[in-house]
């Protein structure tokens, strides 16, 4: 078979698309941001920090840091709003506020997308076409639930839990905010939310949207800060803790709330298997594998980071996959033609480099797409490791970057065994043209979400969550609502 991987030299020809930058002017950032507590902007009492653009390392804004007292203040504000307004309001009226927020998100979609790409490093085509539309969809979906809670599966007149403390990660800053806030508010809870240290901007813009929507003061409070702020929030007088992030932090949270009456949902790490059978539609499977691991620079907890490919098609599949990767465009997140953006932080880049080097040292074969890496900022070329064994570190640990580990299997039984051979269990993918095989395999995979002939697709009506060390509780759909409700008095 002839190999024909000929990366185009940059600066020549049609494929070197001229720059097509999205305008930065659609978002006007303040020089510094405080905390959003009780409907107002207040100063924080921790040491302020700066948030930067990971693509250029330029400062974007100064951000306040909430100390224990600030967090307590926010929780008290949320408690007041819960007792006096939000829990007493008719569901239909709560729904009106949520619909209003959803519409405002759509109206300000371009601004939110640019802010997200600036602060996170993800390509504008993803923030514009995936993140922000899903954020609006989440609010619309749960707005519709607000007056129909009797049908949430907990019997008539279910009750909200009270004040929810929510801590979210940096990979989908605004989308994770929507996953947390929309169901909580629809169910009648009030919230204190802490965005990630490196990506606070869109949450702060969301605070602005809450004001614009005339949301009653204290229903949504945003406290920024580092890990200590999150710890303070978990320990504070909240009724519910919702966390999305690493398994290590999730474990700390589980310990901290053990023995209290606080309810917890944890959405943690993953090491998903993407299983490609020899009867898969090959071109589409390659697209799915690319989307599974290189979407959002691989900063996805449910990323398909382990490719399990049937041994009979391994060589051809990897050959074609590499050829496809040579067409991925790595570069400025604000360029509309960028496919892979910047790594979110220097710290994360170090982790990706360390684990990749370890993969190489342990004997796996490394291949990176030929691409020009900008001088400034945090970047990592899309990378594939072949000859990976199940015992390799890169097949076991979550890398959370654009790095794919390729393993092989011979039979469906072996594929299932290898896919399940991980402490995680968040998601999995199956590629085959045979429907009965897909159903049979999906049935035996221990993962919260199993995608068939697609990957990384989300819908507000579909529950999402993990097995084992990937956490517990479900977000999205009716199940996600149940995480913020308790059965009413009979």
């Amino acid at each position: 078979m002839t190999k024909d991987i000929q990366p185009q030299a940059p600066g020549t020809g049609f494929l070197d698309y001229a720059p097509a930058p999205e305008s930065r002017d659609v978002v006007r950032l303040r020089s510094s941001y405080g905390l959003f507590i009780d409907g107002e902007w207040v100063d924080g009492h921790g040491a302020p920090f700066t948030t930067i653009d990971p693509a250029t390392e330029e400062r974007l804004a100064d951000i306040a840091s909430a100390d224990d007292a600030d967090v307590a203040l926010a929780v008290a504000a949320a408690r007041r709003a819960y007792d006096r307004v939000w829990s007493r309001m008719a569901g239909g009226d709560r729904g009106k506020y949520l619909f209003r927020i959803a519409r405002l998100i759509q109206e300000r979609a371009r601004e939110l997308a640019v802010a997200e790409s600036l602060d996170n490093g993800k390509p504008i085509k993803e923030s514009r076409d995936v993140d922000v539309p899903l954020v609006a969809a989440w609010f619309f979906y749960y707005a519709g639930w607000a007056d129909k809670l009797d049908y949430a599966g907990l019997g008539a007149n279910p009750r909200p839990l009270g004040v929810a403390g929510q801590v979210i990660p940096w990979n989908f800053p605004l989308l994770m905010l929507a996953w947390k806030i929309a169901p909580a508010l629809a169910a009648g809870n009030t919230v204190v939310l802490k965005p990630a240290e490196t990506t606070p901007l869109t949450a702060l813009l969301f605070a602005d949207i809450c004001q614009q929507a005339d949301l009653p003061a204290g229903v949504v409070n945003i406290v920024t800060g580092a890990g200590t702020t999150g710890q303070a929030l978990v320990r504070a007088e909240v009724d519910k803790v919702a966390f999305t992030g690493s398994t290590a932090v999730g474990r700390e949270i589980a310990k901290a709330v053990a023995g209290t009456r606080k309810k917890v949902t944890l959405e943690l790490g993953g090491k998903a298997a993407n299983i490609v059978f020899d009867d898969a539609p090959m071109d589409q499977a390659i697209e799915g594998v690319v989307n599974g691991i290189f979407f959002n620079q691989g900063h996805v907890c449910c990323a398909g980071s382990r490719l399990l490919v049937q041994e009979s098609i391994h060589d051809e599949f990897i050959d074609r996959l590499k050829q496809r990767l040579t067409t991925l465009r790595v570069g400025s997140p604000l360029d509309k033609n960028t496919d892979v953006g910047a790594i979110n932080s220097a710290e994360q880049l170090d982790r990706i480099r360390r684990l990749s080097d370890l993969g190489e040292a342990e004997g796996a074969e490394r291949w990176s797409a030929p691409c020009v890496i900008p001088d400034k900022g945090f970047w990592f070329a899309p990378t594939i490791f072949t000859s990976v064994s199940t015992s390799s570190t890169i097949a076991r640990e979550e890398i959370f970057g654009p790095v794919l580990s390729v393993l092989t299997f011979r039979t469906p039984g072996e594929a299932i065994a290898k896919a399940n051979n991980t402490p995680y269990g968040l998601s999995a993918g199956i590629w085959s043209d045979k429907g009965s095989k897909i159903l049979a395999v999906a049935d035996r995979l221990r993962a919260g979400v199993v995608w068939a002939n697609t990957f990384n697709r989300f819908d507000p009506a579909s529950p999402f969550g993990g097995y084992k060390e990937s956490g517990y509780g479900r977000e999205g759909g009716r199940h996600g609502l149940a995480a913020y409700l308790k059965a009413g008095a009979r």
Partner: protein
Amino acid sequence: MNTVAKLAPTARAVAMLGGDADDRALRLHLEGLSRVDAVGLEQRAAGFATRSIKTTSKAAALDTVIRLIDLTTLEGADTPGKVRSLAAKARTPDPSDPTTPRPAALCVYGDLVAVAIDALGGLHGDPDDGRIGVAAVATAFPTGRASLAVKLADTRDAVAAGADEIDMVIDRGAFLAGRYGQVFEEIVAVKEACFRADGSAASLKVILETGELATYDAVRRASWLAILAGADFIKTSTGKVGPAATLPVTLLMLEVVRDWHRLTGERIGVKPAGGIRASKEAIRYLIAVAETVGEAWLTPHLFRFGASSLLNDVLLQRQKLASGHYSGPDYVTID
């Protein structure tokens, strides 16, 4: 089979199939091809539409689109006058800008080939040398419902009149009925009819009429079958059946020629035809070509648009890029 045995495609097909290219062997071979997931294919095609082609890239793309157009008239009402008018348009696409490139070829019915050649005069020739070729549709276009003898006579007639390229249709009825051997042999026979007395041959485009094949799996099999039988180009549609060219179908055919190239090192052309009217749409096809098979395919010998109204839309966009403002349909000439 003796007459066609000397042709490379048949020998190659026999080698690839491990036996005669009969129905059974062809079915085993074609049904062994990887299947197509419709949702995934359409998603990938939709992804090309999100590419943003601006400034210098847009200017280069517009000129490339013009160079790849088969300027087409295929009406029952076609006359020598209409064909001469089309030829004049091809010679001078935009009288206000002499730097405008020319389309690759004129595409007409067989009986008007001589008129087209005469009207092009000294500009008739190879598009690679900046000249304009003449393509003729043949084999009982557009339905292909005639005996093989008639189809071959139709083809020989157009070649004798001087056609540089023959656009044939496959027998969709035979294909859908599983008579792959018949489709194969017809293409091989037409390919042979493309040869001229001096041993040179007209280039053969094989029209699959994807709108009648209906499924992507069938399009992949028909594409592969046509290439096995010796097609120089695979073409989506006649333009007489809807849907005509679509981006997903064209992407799928590009994937087939990419796979064929991996297997044999041979480059086959692709021609989407029918329904492509806007520059923006045409540029998406260029993106699909560049990102699927590579920029090497963006030449008249490997990619064409079968279109008529597309040219004027590209000219309007081209004028807009140069002047900074939109003119209007009265500032481009009709053919």
